[in-house]
């Protein structure tokens, strides 16, 4: 139960309204440090909205999202940070972030939350390698002395770029795309593009990797490979993963923790085993007679 004992990200009372529509209604959950956390739910349940709030693409209507980089957040410190105007605060080795206050690029750069998109967003006209180098923008930017020193041609930048290429090569090797490093990303097959987008996000060195339907459009074999890749990322890099997924075989196979949303409300939260047997989840997914729903809600059915 790492999401309770050692959360990396804690979401409290997240609400997102678009005019009269409440897309996400008072959702709270934690994402455990080093866990693979899955958010599932029927279409239109508000999963992607939660993602967009976490990664700063939407400003949530209300709610708090606390990210704690090293070790658990101290309740006192979080309260102090919330009272202040600051977006983040350092406490020794740990840094606390309030994601709802930060702009999207800062969430990626400072809070180290990377994401992928439901519809793949690669830089199609750039090569596979270039995609992975762009992901290391902030490291390279400071190595190039914010362009000024790089323009003169200092060796420091050349070394940093070489290191960036090596890092890119590591990830390309891992997904078996090294041979296509110099091909435009837009020319890759769909499955490769999905995996490239994931490793591109990994190249920005995140602590939390948010994947929006990574298995969408993949065949069973590719889905299995994807599961392996995510397990490798979790095991060897200690990166926590938050994913939205419809493919239950992937979700049940790799997740440590599953959250179920329906109509913007959290209906279940726990281990895959727990969620699989939760009658509310079964009702949401399979659909049941109205009387049964009422019975479930009254807690009469198991």
């Amino acid at each position, binding site marked *: 139960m790492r999401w309770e004992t050692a959360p990396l990200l804690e979401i409290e009372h997240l609400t997102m309204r678009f005019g009269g529509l409440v897309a996400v209604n008072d959702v709270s959950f934690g994402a455990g440090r080093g866990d693979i956390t899955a958010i599932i739910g029927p279409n239109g349940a508000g999963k992607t909205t939660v993602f967009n709030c976490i*990664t700063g*693409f939407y400003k949530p209507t209300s709610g708090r999202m606390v990210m704690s980089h090293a070790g658990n957040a101290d309740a006192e410190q979080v309260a102090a940070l919330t009272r202040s105007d600051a977006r983040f605060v350092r406490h020794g080795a740990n840094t606390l972030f309030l994601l709802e206050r930060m702009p*999207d*690029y*800062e969430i*990626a*750069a*400072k809070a180290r939350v*990377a*994401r*992928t*998109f439901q519809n793949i*967003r*690669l*830089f*199609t*006209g*750039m*090569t596979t*390698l*270039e995609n992975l*180098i*762009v*992901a290391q*923008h*902030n490291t*390279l*930017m400071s190595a*190039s002395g914010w*362009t000024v020193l*790089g*323009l003169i*041609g200092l060796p420091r*930048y050349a070394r940093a*770029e070489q290191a960036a*290429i090596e890092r890119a*090569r590591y990830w*390309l090797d891992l997904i078996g795309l*090294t041979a296509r*490093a*110099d*091909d*435009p990303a*837009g*020319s890759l097959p769909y499955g490769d593009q999905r995996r490239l987008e994931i490793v*591109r*996000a990994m190249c*920005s060195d995140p602590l939390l990797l948010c994947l929006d339907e990574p298995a969408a459009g993949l065949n069973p074999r590719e889905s299995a490979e994807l599961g392996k890749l995510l397990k490798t990322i979790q095991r060897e890099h200690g990166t926590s993963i938050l994913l939205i997924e419809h493919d239950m075989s992937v979700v049940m196979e790799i997740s440590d923790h599953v959250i179920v949303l329906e109509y913007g409300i959290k209906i279940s939260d726990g281990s895959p085993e727990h969620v699989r047997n939760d009658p509310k989840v079964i009702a949401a997914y399979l659909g049941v007679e109205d009387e049964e729903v009422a019975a479930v809600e009254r807690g009469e059915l198991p």
Partner: protein
Amino acid sequence: MAGATHQRIGILGAARDAVKTALLALGLSVPIVLLRTDQDFSNQLILEPRVGLTLSLVAIAFVARFVWLLIADWHKSRPARATRVPILAGMSVSPEAARRFAVGGLIFLFAYPALALALVGPAGSIKWIDNFGIQILIYVMLGWGLNIVVGLAGLLDLGYVAFYAVGAYSYALLASNDVVKDFMAELIGPAFWPAWAFWICLPVAGILAAFWGIILGFPVLRLRGDYLAIVTLAFGEIIRMVLINWVDVTGGYAGISGIPRPSFFGLPFTASDTGFAATFGIEFTPLHRTIFLFYLILVLALLTNAVTLRLRRLPVGRAWEALREDEIACRSLGINTTNTKLTAFAIGAGFGGFAGAFFAARQNFISPESFTFLESAVILAIVVLGGMGSQIGVAIAAIAMIGGTELLRELDWLKHIFGADFDPTQYRMLLFGLAMVMIMIWRPRGLIANRQPTLFLTSRRAISGDLVKEGHG
């Protein structure tokens, strides 16, 4: 026409079709060309028939259609080639070929004044060096500057001429300002400012233009596509309106004249004893200055190119191109898109400012008339025709567009056909439009649509223009 039928129409069929075209041309010409209203000596409105001109146009339409159909016929008769390079992909240029072309072009450019002198002599060469050489190179530089904003960062800027104007007026006002002159005379000596004004004001003009690039950048950062284009267009007009109406400073429509000329690193191009010619012991001729200006704009343009190529290999340049490809993905990777756009605007504007300062120094006179929207359109057309993001493509497009305009001035013999009051330069825009339409049909992504990757693991392979996005503002 290029339908599935491979039937040939033959000469007779082509002639029949061409007659139809000629009739259509006649029908269009009668109301538009044939009747011209004029005033006679007693100020009466008279109709002047232009039968000769109308018939020439009809004849041109007939011949063009006829030849076109015959060529198409001949094409159909040949066996289809097994592999056809899709036209959409644009011209495919290997890196080696591009490098050879660039080196050859450079050698030619550096030898150009000498070539012109040798071929047409000192009197005739001024036209070739000034009107063709310098004029084209100014637009090459402007094209390269705008290429950063439009080609690399994918931000459609319709008001680029504003930065050109800021550079030109900054230079003109600073270099001919008496307060600055007196201050410098007191500080360093009376000879310093006249000799070095150009070399100090040139970078200042560039920096001021870059500053205005940032000023424009801030309000338009949220805008995309059409909206961005409209606002930049308005910005260009605002700058021009300020130049026209702030008469105390800019002289309004009258402009600024007597702008100091550039010196050869302190040596003026005059017949005096301290001038360039006397110092080097050669006979004075105004050609010296023209040749010097040619090399100056050549170096400035090459500097623009070198900086752009270098920036493309730096994180900021890759961020520009990534921004053009997908702005949202950029933000998800921690790239501050605000700063990225601002740097693109500022650096592009800075080069426009350099070119403007050079323009003012070369012309010796500037007025708002040199900075109309048409200039922005021409520069943008150069970038689009050349192939967005392609340095060589932009250079070729500038040569074709500006050189073509200048060549129109050489077509005086057309007066023998169309009458004495026919002015070929009036047809500039018509030809521009025609060139644009042709390019958009045959090379929709510009002359050179391929993108060269900025780094590679095993081999550098050009990326087809089909995959490269144009940006969305």
